[in-house]
């Protein structure tokens, strides 16, 4: 089936004219019509736009660029001028950006076609898409379970073959954790490797743009186009972009892969543990050397993340005021009353919690105790990773301590939800690249294997992930729908 093909496979079919772009896009649109109502992965679908674009690609001919004519999904916090961007929130009711984010532009310039917007937790705050104003996204492997979050929509779209690839954002695990729970590939690049211009910020020192795909090879291809300095995002790095597609072809013989012992403690589901252990044995048989390492400050990651994050969130959420975009406030007496009413009606509970925590931490008497302290512990975490990367090339661990949990299971206590990101959060705090790819499922539910690299060493991460992926069958598995 054409919709099961990876990006590179789809490109071959388009180039050889075995399939037209219109046929390709129509096939995906048909799948969306059939499955999206049950899954709620896409919150906006650009049927007319996408088919018109596809027609133009067919008339233009060529398909010389691998991304030409490829239909993809954008997470709902990306600004793009062909559809609404609401960041999963009521406060951005009907907002349509009059411009494209840089990352979107880079994809469109290669000829890729935006199929629609993928559902997200509200302003990407969550690990299950349950805080989305537009309802939860269901896991294609079991509709009673979550697809993870916050990029639940983008992840589920790829896993259910509703698109060829998607773009998401990862601040504490929001690309990798949903990729793990739905069984697709998700990369969080190094902070600053890709441009955040035009993507709605949650925590500006942690947010990272990245692709969700069916294969690591596809990831390498997309990253090549996404990566690189953007003058409109001053946090992007002026670091050369390697030829990722060439790098992934190298084998892993002699590569040193660290197993951080703090990521293999009790509390992990048995099925996940077995799956990861089997993957590590597979890596050994591919010629890699496994080394036990330690990242002693791992257990403080949640505390650091939920100190720094909320503070930055409260600053980034200040712009949502019902004036420049989105929801119109009613019944206000004056301007300040207007802000209060719009923001109370427009924001959901999790957003209010994080804004409140953010201001609390910054209050007089607490700033030094909590915020400055968190920045010091973050420095210690970075030091842990720097020391480990002097000894090994990459790290391996689970992406999530569990498989997809049931809808409603963790919504009673914010911290219960935050713990879903326990293996992903530390990597955002140290700015490093990490990928989640499928390993052996547990009880027919996907399990994610995570590789972590040093800053700007995506090529090593992609290389190990790709070599493992082509030696195993997990990436080709699809849910029964």
């Amino acid at each position: 089936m054409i919709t099961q093909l990876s990006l590179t496979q789809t490109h071959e079919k388009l180039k050889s004219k075995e399939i037209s772009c219109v046929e390709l896009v129509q096939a995906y649109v048909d799948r969306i019509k059939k499955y999206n109502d049950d899954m709620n992965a896409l919150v906006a679908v650009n049927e007319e736009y996408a088919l018109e674009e596809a027609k133009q690609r067919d008339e233009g001919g060529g398909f010389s660029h691998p991304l030409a004519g490829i239909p993809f999904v954008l997470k709902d916090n990306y600004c793009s001028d062909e559809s609404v961007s609401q960041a999963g929130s009521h406060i951005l009711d009907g907002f349509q950006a009059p411009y494209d984010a840089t990352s979107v532009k880079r994809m469109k310039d290669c000829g890729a076609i935006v199929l629609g917007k993928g559902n997200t937790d509200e302003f990407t705050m969550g690990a299950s898409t349950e805080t989305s104003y537009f309802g939860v996204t269901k896991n294609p492997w079991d509709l009673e379970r979550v697809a993870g979050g916050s990029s639940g929509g983008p992840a589920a779209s790829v896993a259910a073959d509703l698109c060829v690839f998607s773009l998401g954002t990862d601040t504490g695990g929001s690309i990798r954790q949903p990729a793990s729970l739905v069984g697709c590939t998700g990369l969080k690049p190094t902070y600053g490797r890709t441009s955040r211009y035009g993507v709605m910020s949650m925590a500006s020192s942690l947010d990272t743009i990245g692709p969700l795909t069916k294969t690591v090879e596809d990831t390498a291809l997309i990253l090549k186009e996404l990566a690189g300095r953007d003058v409109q995002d001053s946090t992007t790095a002026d670091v050369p972009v390697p030829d990722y597609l060439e790098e992934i072809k190298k084998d892993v013989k002699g590569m040193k892969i660290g197993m951080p012992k703090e990521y293999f403690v009790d509390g992990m589901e048995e099925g996940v543990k077995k799956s990861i252990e089997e993957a590590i044995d597979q890596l050994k048989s591919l010629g890699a050397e496994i080394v036990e390492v330690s990242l002693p400050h791992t257990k403080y990651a949640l505390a650091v993340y939920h100190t720094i994050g909320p503070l930055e969130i409260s600053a980034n959420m200040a712009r949502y005021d019902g004036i420049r975009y989105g929801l119109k406030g009613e019944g206000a007496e004056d301007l300040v009353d207007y802000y209060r009413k719009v923001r109370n009606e427009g924001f959901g509970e999790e957003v209010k919690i994080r804004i409140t925590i953010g201001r609390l931490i910054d209050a007089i008497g607490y700033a030094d105790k909590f915020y400055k302290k968190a920045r010091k512990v973050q420095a210690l975490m970075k030091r842990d990773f720097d020391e480990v990367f002097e000894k090994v090339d990459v790290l391996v661990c689970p992406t999530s301590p569990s498989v997809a949990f049931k809808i409603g299971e963790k919504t009673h206590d914010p911290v219960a939800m935050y713990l879903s990101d326990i293996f992903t959060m530390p990597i955002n705090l140290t700015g490093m690249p990490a990928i989640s790819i499928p390993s052996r499922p547990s009880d027919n539910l996907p399990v994610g294997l995570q590789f972590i690299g040093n800053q700007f060493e995506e090529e090593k991460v992609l290389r190990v992930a790709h070599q493992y992926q082509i030696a195993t069958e997990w990436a080709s598995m699809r849910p029964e729908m």
Partner: protein
Amino acid sequence: MSVTKEQVRKIAEVTRIDLSDEEIEVLLPKLNSVVSEIKKLEEVDTEGVEPIAQITGLENVMEEDEVRQFEDISALVKCSPLAEGSFIKVKKSL
């Protein structure tokens, strides 16, 4: 340190969110749950450690202070739910 209703009310004022008393009641235990996690930072010995500022080592990324015109200003104004012609009409602030 436990979060109080008074603190939440003050913060709601500053962050311009019209939280009702009932909403504050609901939020309070959740806020305290998060604060309990944050307090674990107190156990870490950070003597002599500098707080980290920028994670990838960037410093003072400069840009020329040039005016650049956005191509379609009317499109920006149209985004506003309070747009009237080329203006955005807001409630009185005084």
